[in-house]
């Protein structure tokens, strides 16, 4: 088959891939650019698959960009075909349909794959993962005539699945291995608040347990009928959603010269160890400004930031990744939560400030180290968290106004004059007497 040739080739059509394509087009309007993805849809908002499953959104309204996006930007969208091999010598890729595509610059934005632990009976019909629109479509068909679901994993994906299934009037049980849900994002007190609001919606939460076996139905053993927990308890259900996390999807570079740690290792330009090859998003192990080292932080905004840096560099406009860290906002079951950085500091050199109220649904916490913010957690009134996160990213010395970080109306007005005026682009020095 004849080989196509692209100056810029992107594998992956989600947050990182799209951000990179847009960044390339900011610099290079015409260079041949293609996006390859095994998913058959135009780019969609992955977090919105739960609203699609809940029946709150159509497939069209989860689209990330307008329908004209690819055409308007001169992007060849090669969708529904998997890239199955990369040749870093010849600089081409081979698609599952046999086509070969040559590239000059390559971006690996392949994302993550859901982790599915080995469980007896895990192959039964009715066991799902929940990271793609296709997963959501399958689940949407499956929920039509069932009543009970078990969600394995009380993290972001598990909670979003649980919320959607509860919206579909299924009786939902969340099974979480740790002692609290959202254990990487929340502290114990916050987790209890969230658990309370989830239980209030009729969802059951079981912590400290995992599923050791998936049972069949009495009339049909090939279909899910329940699960057995570590302690032997049985929970009857008609379907199981496995949502314990994602792992970088690095299989395309296995055995290649591209350096892989936990994910594909990139420098501050988002370049891999092979010249002309870049990576971003959930597959990449990129700079984390808080920890001062490379980490895998599989969250959407970081994929976009990394994708933009990669795209600029691919189009020969030098750009340096400012780095990102774990930072999340959740609005599940009617409770607003923002969290970033170190929320559960080990004892020792950290200073923890916290406050609560008004009411028992509001809680705020800021973690400091050497006068600088290294973590934040806001529940309820989350509006001030952006300014706090900004100060954390800047590495600003907040020692002199640390107490005000927790005041209810905290904002730029609470900052020292010079810092505030500098942030607002106002001349520094002219100050009120």
């Amino acid at each position: 088959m004849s080989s196509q040739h692209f100056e810029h080739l992107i594998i992956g059509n989600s947050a990182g891939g799209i951000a990179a394509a847009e960044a390339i087009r900011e610099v290079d309007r015409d260079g041949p650019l293609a996006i390859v993805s095994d998913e058959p849809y135009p780019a969609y908002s992955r977090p919105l698959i739960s609203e699609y499953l809940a029946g709150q959104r159509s497939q069209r309204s989860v689209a990330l960009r307008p329908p004209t996006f690819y055409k308007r930007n001169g992007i060849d969208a090669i969708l529904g075909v998997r890239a199955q091999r990369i040749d870093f010598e010849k600089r081409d890729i081979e698609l599952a349909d046999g086509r070969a595509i040559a590239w000059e610059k390559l971006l690996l934005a392949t994302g993550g794959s859901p982790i599915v632990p080995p469980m007896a009976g895990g192959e039964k019909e009715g066991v799902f993962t929940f990271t793609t629109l296709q997963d959501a479509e399958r689940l949407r068909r499956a929920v039509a005539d069932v009543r009970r679901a078990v969600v394995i994993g009380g993290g972001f994906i598990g909670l979003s699945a649980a919320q959607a299934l509860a919206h579909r009037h299924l009786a939902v049980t969340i099974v979480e291995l740790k002692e609290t849900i959202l254990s990487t994002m929340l502290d114990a007190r916050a987790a209890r608040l969230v658990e309370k609001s989830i239980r209030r919606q009729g969802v059951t939460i079981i912590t400290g347990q995992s599923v050791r076996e998936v049972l069949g139905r009495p009339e049909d053993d090939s279909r899910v009928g329940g699960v057995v927990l570590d302690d032997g308890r049985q929970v009857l259900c008609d379907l199981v959603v496995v949502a314990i996390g994602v792992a970088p999807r690095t299989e395309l570079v296995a055995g290649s010269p591209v350096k892989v740690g936990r994910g594909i290792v990139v420098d501050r330009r988002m370049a891999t160890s092979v010249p002309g090859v870049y990576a971003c998003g959930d597959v990449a192990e990129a700079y984390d400004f808080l920890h001062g080292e490379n980490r895998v932080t599989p969250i959407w905004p970081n994929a976009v930031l990394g994708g933009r840096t990669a795209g600029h560099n691919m189009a020969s406009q030098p750009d340096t990744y400012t780095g990102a860290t774990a930072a999340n906002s959740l609005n599940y079951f009617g409770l607003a939560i923002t969290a970033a950085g170190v929320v559960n500091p080990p004892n020792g050199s950290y200073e923890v400030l916290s406050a609560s109220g008004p009411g028992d649904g509001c809680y705020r916490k800021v973690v400091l180290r050497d006068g600088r913010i290294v973590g934040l957690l806001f529940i309820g009134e989350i509006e001030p968290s952006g300014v706090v996160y900004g100060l954390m990213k800047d590495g600003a010395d907040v020692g002199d106004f640390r107490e005000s970080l927790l005041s209810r109306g905290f904002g730029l007005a609470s900052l020292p004059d010079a810092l505030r005026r500098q942030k607002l682009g106002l001349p520094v020095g002219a100050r009120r007497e």
Partner: protein
Amino acid sequence: MKLVYPNEEVCVGCRLCEVHCLVEHSTSRDLIKAFKRERPRPLARIRVQADGDRFLALQCRHCPDPPCVHACLTGALYRDPATGAVCVDADKCSGCWTCILFCPFGVISRDVTRGVIAKCDLCPDRLVPACVANCPNEALIFTNGEEL
């Protein structure tokens, strides 16, 4: 591009900017009806913050490289290429509030009733934004920065 800059020295904290912003973003655009009768209530997109006797009226800075747009999970936030204004497509906004965490100015609000964010749009139907036009003290300046 032209932005609204606060002049803290002369802001008395009267919050008339909030009132006129709310009216501008209401259905009736009527000062009396907007807050009293409209449900769900329109929200002001500018907010006057107080720190002791100092007041700061602040709204979206319409960043050239906007962190909120880059953080948006749904594609609802975008930067209008023609005007440079950072805008939200309310139909696409899912109310996940991720942009609120990533906005270093703290100027995006939750519209809890509608389940979407509320932010300054620089009043696309007006030559001068409502907050600036109605500030009794000229504490808000609409400028490209040269007059600061």
